[in-house]
Structure formats: C-alpha cells, structure tokens
C-alpha cells in the first residue's frame, strides 16, 4: 500500500485498520474508513482538485463540509455517475472513483485555462454584453458557451437505483446534531415527545468532531465523552428517531420539512445491494429546533484562490478529525481568535506554522495567548497582499496595514508556505430559518445576520443563532429543546446548566476587502462562479443597486453551493461600494434546497409504470391481443387503431373508417365519463348547466347537451339520458369526466344549495360498446333477438333496456359518426363477454374494430366538434355554429349572460369552418396557422388555425376543421397555411363534409 504522505502518525477519527482504495482522475490512492474524499486526497498531498467555472483556474479544497465551492467532482461512472459532488462531504469507500470537472483534456493541462489569460474580456455580465447581439447568432454562441461552461456531466442512462419516500410526523424536529442540537434533542426527548434529530454527517457531533479536545471540557470530561453519552441516551429513547446522513434541505409552509437521507452513497456497490439509495422524508413537525451551526467565511484578499489556501476551521478539522496535515509549512491569516486554534492544532500535529497574520492590532484572547506561548510568531496589524504558486500555493507576501485598514505600507515580507489557513469570522447558517420566512437581523458587533422573530413554529439555538461559545450552544440548545417540547404538549423539568470550560474570544476586525498594493490583483469572492471584487465593483458602477440584481448580473452565489462562503462577503463589498450600511443592502433570498437533491429522490417510486395510474377498459386485453396501438387519454389507454400485418397507420385507419360506413364498425367507448344524477330537482339542474332545455325530455329519451363556463366558453359536451322522472345519466368526454363531476358538485354546493340533486360517478361501473354502420341494426338483432329495433319503435336518440348476448343491457340509439349507431351499456364485468359475442356475430358482416383515430375521422367528416379540440376555452357555441343548441327562453343557465358580452357577441370572432387543400392529398398539420396573404417572412396576420385534420377515405381527399376569423362569411375564399416548405393553399368550406342531409342516420 502506498504511503499517505500527509497522514499524521496518530489521532483522528479514522480507522487505520480499514484501508480503502480509490481513484482520482485515473490514479489510484488509499485512504481510511472515516475519511471523506477530500481528506483522503489531502492525505495523499493532492490539493489541486478542480478548475473554476469561468477562468478555469486551478482550485483546491477550501472547506470541509457542505459549504465547499471548489472541490466538486464527478463521482462514479455510467448510469451511476453524479456530477458536482462535494469531495468534502463524500464519504470514502473502497472502489470509489472520482474525476475533476471543468477541465479538458486533463486537470493539469487544461485548454479552458486560456480564459484566465483573457479574463479582461470576461467581466461580469459578459454573456449579456458579448453574445446578445446580433440575436440571430446567440444560438451559435450558446452551444459553445454551454459546452465550455458545464459543471460536470449528467448521466445519459436510466438511473438504475431505487429511491424511497416517507411521510412522518413528530413533535419536535431538531436539525443539526452539534452541541446545541444534541442538547436540544436530549432535553426534548426526556419529556417523552416524539423527536427527530437529523444531521447531514455520518457522525453526530458537528464542530465537536473537529476539536482536538485539548482546550475545552464539558462537565469535567472531554467533549467527546459527553457527545457519546448523549448519542447513547438518544438512541435509548424509543420515541426519538436518530437520522445521520440526513440533510434537512427545505423548510416549507406549516412546518413541513424536506429531508434527504443518504442510505447507500457511502457504500461500495456490492454492499449497497438492493437497498434504496436515498430516502426523501416529508416531515411535519409541531415544533422545530434549528441547530444548524455556522459556516466560516474566507477573507477576501489578493490571489486568495490558489490550491492550498483553505478555511482555518477546515484545516483544523483535517488535522483533528481526519489526522491529515494540510501542509508542511502553514501561514494562518485571520481577523478573529478562532483561527488560532487551527494554528495551535497544526503546530501540535507537527506542521511548521510560519506565522499568524492578524488584521487586528490588538489581539488579547485566550487562544492567541496560547499560540504565543507555543512559540508561534504573530504579526498583528498585518495583511497578506499577494500569494504565489501555480498548482499549489508556495508563499505569501505580507505588509503592514494602515490604521484605517484601507492601505498597506512598509516593506513586503515573503513567507514560504504550502498551506494558508484563512478565517474571516463565522456566518450563522440561517438558511432554513430564512426559508421558513423568518426575517434576519444584522448584528453589527460581529457583522453577522442572525435570526429575528420566527414566523413558523421554530426556534434557533447555538451558532446558527449567533451564539458561538460552547457554553452558549449547550444552554440554548437545552432550553430550545425543552421549550419546543412544552409547546408541543409535553412536560419536563428544567435541566441543570452544563458547565463548559473553553477559551474566551476577543473581538474581531472586519475588513471586507484586504488591501493590496497591487491594484490589478484579483480577489475572489465567489469561488465557484469566479466572481471577484472587480466584478462586484463593475456591477455597482453600471448602476445596479439591488443585491438581487447584482447577484444575477455577476452570478455571485448562483453556483451549486449557493454562495455559502461568499454571499455575506459579496453583499458587504457591494454595501461598501454603494456607501450604504450592510443591513440597508439586505440579503439575497435563501432558497431550498440547502444542498442539491437528486431528481431520483424527488421522483421516488413514481417512475416508469408507477409514474401515473394506468386505466384500462374491461375489453383492454382484447385490444392488446388484436395488436392495437394505444393512445393515452388522461390516464386511460384507448385503442388508437388496429394495424394488420404490413399496414401503415393511414392504411389501417382508412380501412376502419370505410368499414364503419360500408358495413359495421365496433368501438370500445367505455372511457366516456358517466355521471348518475338523481333528485327531485335533477331536471331543473340540467336546465341550468346545459345550454338547451331538459324538463320536457321524455323518460327513455336522450339529448345532446353543451356545457359552458360562466364566461360563455364551451367546457364539455355529451349525451344525457333520462332514466326516470328524477333520474338522469350524463355522459362527458373521456378527459373531462372528473372535472365535470367536480363542476356539478361545486355549483350544487356553493351556488344552488337549495337544489336537491345527487351526483355519482359511474364511469367504471359500465362497459360501453358502440356499433355503427349500415349493418349495425342487423348485428344487434343477432345478439339481442328479444329487442325491437325498428326505427319506429327505437328511433334515433332513444333508449331501450333488454338482453344483449344474455346480459341485461341499456342500449342507446345514438351516433357520433352519422351512421345508424347503438351504444350498448352493460355492467363492466360483462363487457368483454358481450364484446366477444358481437365480434363473433359480426363476422358475416366483416365487423371491424375501429380506434380513436378512425372515430375522429368519422366525426370530422360529419363536422362534429370535440370539446377540447375545436374548442380551447376561448370558443363559444356561436363560434362553433351551434346557435341551435342555445335556448334563450328557458331562463338562466351557466354562461348565458356572457354570450351577450360585447366581446363574445363580436362579429369577427374566430368561427368554425371546413378547409379543403388545393391538393386533395395534402393533409394539413393540426395547429397550422392560417393567413390571408403570405409574406416573404413572418410576421404575417394570422386569422385562424387548424383544429382537426385528416385524410377522409370516404371523400377520397383530405379534410380539415379550422377556427377562422369571420369564417362563416368566407366560404369559397382562398387562404394559406404558411409552412417551412412553402405555403399550402386552402379553400374555406362548410364544416360538414359528408352526408349533410343526415339521411344515413335513419337509413
């Protein structure tokens, strides 16, 4: 096994007995169980891990957790590859494969790096300025920009993994299991409340995991002993759910929390087995305790982005938690005391700490004192003004700061180093609090945003609340946990305050940009998106004032890290440029998710066949066996057409259409919406929901009805049958069955509660078989010998009950094709048997099953409209030429008044017409626009559009229905459908193409 050169000989929370091989950019390395990919890379001396988004500058690991903007890698391969994964949160497993992003052909030799030399040409907003003119070329530029810019590659294969989703309820949710979160969970759990405690890391403890344990104590023992005791106590409580590797990523309304639990991402493929990869928790919490900690902010100084420059807290975590030396010679650069702990811990681990460069002139905290005692040189009132090193930092230049902090003077001193640990203070992680819509307050002493008043049932505790000391974290956590449990209805006694011994911190000094004598030096604010102080200055110079606009113009905070390290620095710099106070500039909105969530987890099991319910009719299997092609109508699978061997779709549909007109066709119409309507006011109710009159309809008769919305626009149509004085059966279009039922219920419950009417959906209770054609009557007679089918006793638009193929049936004589037709309704369970009997009895007539396509052609030949095809929510019955169905004398109905509105009564509205193409073989595209005059190029005045278009085998030519401005006055006019290959000439005709007198219906 290869030596891990930067692995410390002892310490850390890693298992040295459990070595793990992994590859990075094709090279093989080893780390240990307990490592992250980042710590394992650093243990092997690999600091340069990726290139930046815009300038392709070499970048190294900056942080040690979710805040990481640089060390984003492509994990895995093939269908299981994941882009933009943070090396700092990726647990190392045996066989892990990772590669750098944003570089080509290799990390060290990257062609995109030329962008760095051209950086003067790529300022903020360069997309907008450079590539938008001429607009025509944008399509060309975009392709190259996207290729050059992409952050990693999305997998192109289907995701082979499974993802779970789980709903849960709890009394108290504790987010974060650092000292504050653990104290909160313990206090809440002791009351007997149902508690969830979640943390994004594999191990609970938060920042305690990064402690050396040398400088702090909890209740006379080591912090780690307290941590272990607390976790053990929580695991013993039966109502406490402990979820490691779980990120609470979104805080939604009414204390609804989205959480992503990573179940197998830390395991080699073989060990993951068939378990779900991740689980999305949808948790409803009565009370939430946010203990989300804080995120260190970098200092913004010249050339602050070289590999080897990292956050001081991260340096400390690498030393103490992972037993990795971040370098051999370190410089610490800080404005506060916390970085001295990093200096002390690195020194204790054998790293030569060259100096602590401190922006402050007075440095008096406990940790700086300990550092001095340990012999670490401290340069007070100094600043790093430049750095060197290409693929890794090789040194820093320091100079004395002036009193105002806006300039440097004196001699430049060079310090050699291979690691710079930086701290600009700590930002409370207020992301979830802000998502919960709580307002943030600015605390000027430490220049941080802290939670203000909660809007939802949430409270913040510890560092995320701006309380950074261990003692405060423990106390606030315990108080918050107990208070939350009490509000949720549980009782518990106040616990004794935990005594904590820790170093006292002195005040910090915020310099939002550290001065340098080199005016051209770049200072990076957002590492992931390569935003520098110059970009922010440019945005302000160009007039941007709102921080939200500056963000979008410069792309600050718009990377996958959402600016966790850069945002507060950016807005402070913008505030400085504007001469405004930081709170006046405000913060950009924190948005879910806190860290990226896989689409797989969001989709859960709702993929493939489980994406949406599939509805099939009782005759579905027959259609399948006969080789039908299906189309989706809502959730229904409907037979579309039945191609025979060697037939094209057109040939099959032509055959089906001809059979229906020449002999007999059979259609599965079971998907029609069916609503049973009863009650003493049923007829009066139908009078109000349909445009025509219903009170005089005889029992056993049916009628076609058209339904409008109250704005007068066509909503749905169908045939309704009167089964009794107070009993109707309404049919709706297949797609509107549910919405029409809801519509009827809404009017009954909200507008006309005085009407006694009851509506029940019976769509699935009946199988409906439609037969039509010249031989339809003979066919029905063959299977229903007891029924009397003569036109005199069974006229069009009437119903008879009788036995069909031995099954009690309700038969309607109706037609959607213009042929004699019967609609046979039987209980759904008998549908297939009756269908089979009809097919068998129809054999002598050459009975032909037809699908929805032939049905559409047949009805279009007759000019029958389909609600939702000819109408689109902007069409009145008058537009459709259906004035005949509007009864103006029966009283009010839904939509009546709207038909007289000035706009609906306009003469020049689009009206339904037929179109014939000049070439009878040309079939127009549905949706084609229609114009009077064709110009060279758009725009042209569009006067309408094609709504239905087919080839009609009965007419031997194409037919189309269209909605055309003042269409009914244009019969015989020549119009055009402009198409990419040239305009198609059409003539306006009547929309009824076939048998306009309707003689066949009674033939």
């Amino acid at each position, binding site marked *: 096994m290869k030596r891990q050169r930067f692995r410390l000989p002892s310490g850390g929370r890693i298992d040295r007995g459990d070595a793990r091989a992994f590859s990075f950019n094709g090279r093989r390395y080893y780390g240990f169980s307990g490592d992250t990919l980042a710590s394992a890379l650093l243990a092997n001396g690999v600091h340069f891990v990726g290139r930046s988004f815009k300038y392709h500058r070499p970048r190294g690991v900056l942080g040690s957790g979710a805040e990481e903007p640089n060390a984003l890698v492509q994990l895995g391969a093939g269908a299981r590859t994941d882009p933009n994964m943070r090396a700092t949160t990726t647990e190392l497993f045996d066989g892990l494969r990772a590669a750098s992003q944003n570089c080509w052909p290799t990390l060290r030799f990257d062609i995109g790096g030329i962008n760095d030399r051209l950086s003067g040409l790529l300022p903020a907003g360069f997309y907008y300025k450079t590539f938008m003119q001429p607009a025509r070329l944008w399509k060309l530029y975009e392709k190259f920009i996207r290729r050059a810019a992409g952050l990693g590659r999305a997998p192109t294969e289907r995701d082979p993994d499974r993802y779970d989703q789980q709903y849960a309820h709890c009394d108290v949710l504790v987010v974060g299991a650092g000292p504050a979160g653990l104290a909160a969970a313990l206090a809440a759990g002791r009351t007997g409340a149902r508690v969830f405690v979640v943390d994004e890391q594999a191990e609970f403890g938060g920042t305690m995991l990064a402690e050396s344990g040398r400088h702090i104590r909890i209740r006379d023992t080591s912090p780690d002993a307290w941590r272990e005791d607390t976790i053990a106590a929580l695991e013993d409580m039966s109502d406490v759910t402990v979820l490691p590797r779980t990120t609470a990523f979104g805080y*939604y*309304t*009414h204390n*609804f929390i989205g959480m992503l639990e990573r179940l197998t991402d830390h395991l080699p493929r073989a060990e993951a087995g068939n378990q779900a990869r991740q689980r999305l928790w*949808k948790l*409803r919490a009565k009370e939430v305790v946010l203990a989300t900690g804080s995120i260190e902010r970098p200092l913004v100084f010249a050339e602050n982005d070289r590999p080897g420059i990292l956050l001081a807290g991260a340096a400390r975590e690498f030393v103490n938690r992972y037993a990795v030396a971040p370098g051999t010679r370190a410089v610490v650069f800080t404005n506060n005391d916390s970085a001295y702990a990093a200096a002390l811990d690195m020194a204790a681990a054998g790293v030569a700490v060259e100096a602590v460069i401190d922006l402050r002139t007075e440095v008096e905290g406990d940790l700086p004192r300990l550092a001095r005692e340990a012999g670490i040189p401290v340069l007070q009132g100094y600043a790093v003004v430049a750095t060197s090193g290409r693929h890794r930092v090789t040194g820093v230049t320091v100079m004395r700061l002036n009193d105002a902090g806006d300039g440097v003077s004196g001699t430049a001193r060079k310090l050699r180093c291979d690691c710079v640990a930086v701290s600009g203070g700590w930002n409370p992680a207020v992301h979830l609090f802000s998502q919960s*819509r709580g307002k943030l307050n600015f605390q000027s002493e430490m220049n941080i945003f802290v939670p203000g008043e909660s*809007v939802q049932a949430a409270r913040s505790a510890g560092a995320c609340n701006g309380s950074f000391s261990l003692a405060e974290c423990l106390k606030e956590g315990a108080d918050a946990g107990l208070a939350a449990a009490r509000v949720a209805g549980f009782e518990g006694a106040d616990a004794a305050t935990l005594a904590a011994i820790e170093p006292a911190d002195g005040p910090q000094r915020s310099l939002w940009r550290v001065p340098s004598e080199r005016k051209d030096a770049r200072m990076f604010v957002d590492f992931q998106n390569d935003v520098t102080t110059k970009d922010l200055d440019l945005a302000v110079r160009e007039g941007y004032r709102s921080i939200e606009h500056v963000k979008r113009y410069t792309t600050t905070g718009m990377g996958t890290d959402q600016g966790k390290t850069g945002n507060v620095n950016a807005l402070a710099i913008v505030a400085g440029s504007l001469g405004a106070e930081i709170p006046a500039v405000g913060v950009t909105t924190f948005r879910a998710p806190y860290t990226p969530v896989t689409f797989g987890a969001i989709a859960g099991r709702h993929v493939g066949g489980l994406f949406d319910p599939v509805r099939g009719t009782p005759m579905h299997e027959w259609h399948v066996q006969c080789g039908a092609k299906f189309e989706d109508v809502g959730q229904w699978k409907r037979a579309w057409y039945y191609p025979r061997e060697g037939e094209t779709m057109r040939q099959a549909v032509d055959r089906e259409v001809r059979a229906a007109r020449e002999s007999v066709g059979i259609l599965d119409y079971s998907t029609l919406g069916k609503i049973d309507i009863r009650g003493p006011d049923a007829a009066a109710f139908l009078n109000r929901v349909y445009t025509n009159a219903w009170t005089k309809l005889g029992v056993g008769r049916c009628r076609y009805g058209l339904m409008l919305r*109250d*704005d007068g626009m066509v909503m749905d149509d169908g045939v309704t049958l009167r089964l009794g004085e107070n009993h109707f059966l309404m049919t709706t279009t297949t797609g509107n069955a549910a919405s029409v039922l*809801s519509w009827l*219920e*809404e009017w009954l*419950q*909200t*507008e006309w*509660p005085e009407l006694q009417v009851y509506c029940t959906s019976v769509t699935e209770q009946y199988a409906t078989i439609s037969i039509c054609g010249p031989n339809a009557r003979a066919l029905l007679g063959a299977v229903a010998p007891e029924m009397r089918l003569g036109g005199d006793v069974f006229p069009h638009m009437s119903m008879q009950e009788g036995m069909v193929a031995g099954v009690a049936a309700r038969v309607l004589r109706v037609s959607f094709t213009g042929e004699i037709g019967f609609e046979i309704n039987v209980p759904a369970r008998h549908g297939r048997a009756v269908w089979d009997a009809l097919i068998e009895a129809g054999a002598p007539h050459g009975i032909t099953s037809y699908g929805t396509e032939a049905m559409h052609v047949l009805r279009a030949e007759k000019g029958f409209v389909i609600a939702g095809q000819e109408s689109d929510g902007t069409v009145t019955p008058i537009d459709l030429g259906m004035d005949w169905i509007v009864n103006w004398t029966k009283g*009010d109905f839904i939509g*009546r*008044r*709207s038909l*007289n*509105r*000035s706009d609906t009564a306009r003469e020049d509205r689009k009206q339904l017409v037929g179109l014939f193409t000049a070439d009878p073989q040309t079939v127009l595209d549905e949706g084609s626009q229609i114009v009077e005059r064709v110009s060279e190029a758009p725009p042209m005045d569009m006067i309408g559009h094609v709504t239905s278009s087919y080839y009609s085998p009965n007419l031997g030519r194409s037919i189309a229905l269209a909605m055309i401005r003042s269409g009914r006055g244009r019969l015989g006019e020549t119009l055009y459908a402009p198409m990419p290959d040239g305009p198609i000439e059409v003539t306006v005709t009547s929309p009824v193409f076939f048998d306009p007198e309707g003689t066949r219906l009674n033939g």
Partner: protein
Amino acid sequence: MLRIPCPWCGERDVGEFHCGGEAHIARPSGADTIDDDAWAEYLFMRQNPKGSHHERWSHAHGCRRWFHVVRDTDSDQVLAVYLMNEAPPDLPGRSS
C-alpha cells in the same frame, strides 16, 4: 405545503384539497338586466390581497365538501374555517 382543517374530516395535507379562489362573490341574479361592466366585475375581478383572504376550498380527495377558509396569503396561516352557508367570522384586528 399547507395543512387545511376540513370541517368534516379534520386537518389534512393541502394535496387533498382544491382551492376554488375568492369566496363571497355573489352571482348576479336577473342576469339579462345587468350591464357588461357589472357582469365582468363578477366574472373576472378578484381582490388578490396580501394578507387575510376569504377563500372557497373543497376536500377533493376526501369528503368532497366545499367550505370557507380565511387564509393569510403572506404567511399562509389559516385564520378561520366555516361552512358554506355561514357568514364570515369576525377576526379581530383584520380587515376582511
């Protein structure tokens, strides 16, 4: 992801419900006699306030009953629930 308290079924996830928009919009009677403006007012004009809003909701995937909800459109807090045939309750300190 709101929780809506159905007067018949109790508090349920918003996914079970359908929001029917602003409540207490009277449909003009004697529709023929009212002018276009008054009809348009009924058809199209809605308050869309920031704050307290009287709405109609139906428990579409539950009891399928319609009822009224007073909801703060800013905070999404449900301030009151009452039946279809009831008058809006007095909510102290809020304009309706």
